[in-house]
């Protein structure tokens, strides 16, 4: 059993990084890192950014409201 595990681990370590698909890695990287990358990055992260602003804004709502009221009062 131990020999089997050592053999499996050894063969795993000897594999190239993209062992499951050694031939397609350049095509995958070309499909990710292209001109559309910044656009996709913004679009993919947009819902998380909205939720983050919502949650943090709600947490500090008292301070935000006080600051806004102070700004409004000084106008």
């Amino acid at each position: 059993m131990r020999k089997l595990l050592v053999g499996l681990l050894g063969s795993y370590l000897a594999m190239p990084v993209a062992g499951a698909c050694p031939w397609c890695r350049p095509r995958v990287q070309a499909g990710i890192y292209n001109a559309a990358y910044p656009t996709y990055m913004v679009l993919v992260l947009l819902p998380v950014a909205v939720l983050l602003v919502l949650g943090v804004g709600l947490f500090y709502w008292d301070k935000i409201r006080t600051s806004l009221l102070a700004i409004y009062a000084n106008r």
Partner: protein
Amino acid sequence: MQTANTGAPQRTPLVAAGLLLGAGLGGFVDGIVLHQILQWHNMLSGQVPPDTLVRAKINMYWDGLFHAAVWVLTAVGLRLLWAATGRADVPHSGRTLGGGLLLGWGAFNVIEGLLDHEILGLHHVYEYTPNHLPADMSFLAFGLVLLLAGGALVRAGRA
């Protein structure tokens, strides 16, 4: 950070922390169940259909990036929960926190569903059909149910 008790209990910080934690944990449910186990709902499947191994791996990258951001939501929620529980004016209410968690999960489904599925068209919940609407609407409806349940639980926490 310990803050002096100034009178009226403040539930909003606990709801806010629960909201971020709930959104993060809801995002993990989405990632584990829909993306990985069912292999639906991939981030760019509306733009780069995962119909070949290469395209599936491209989607896998963007799924990973999205869920890394969801991890950040969870971590920030945990930090805010720590800050909220250190305040004397924030009541230690399981219902309020539970309500916040459900609100967060519901907000995740509704915001992600409206932005990515309906407005941006980045992907749909179930891409492998000409009619995306039933799965998309079910996702949104589940989010609305969670929002209603969360709101009810937060209100119950005031009692």
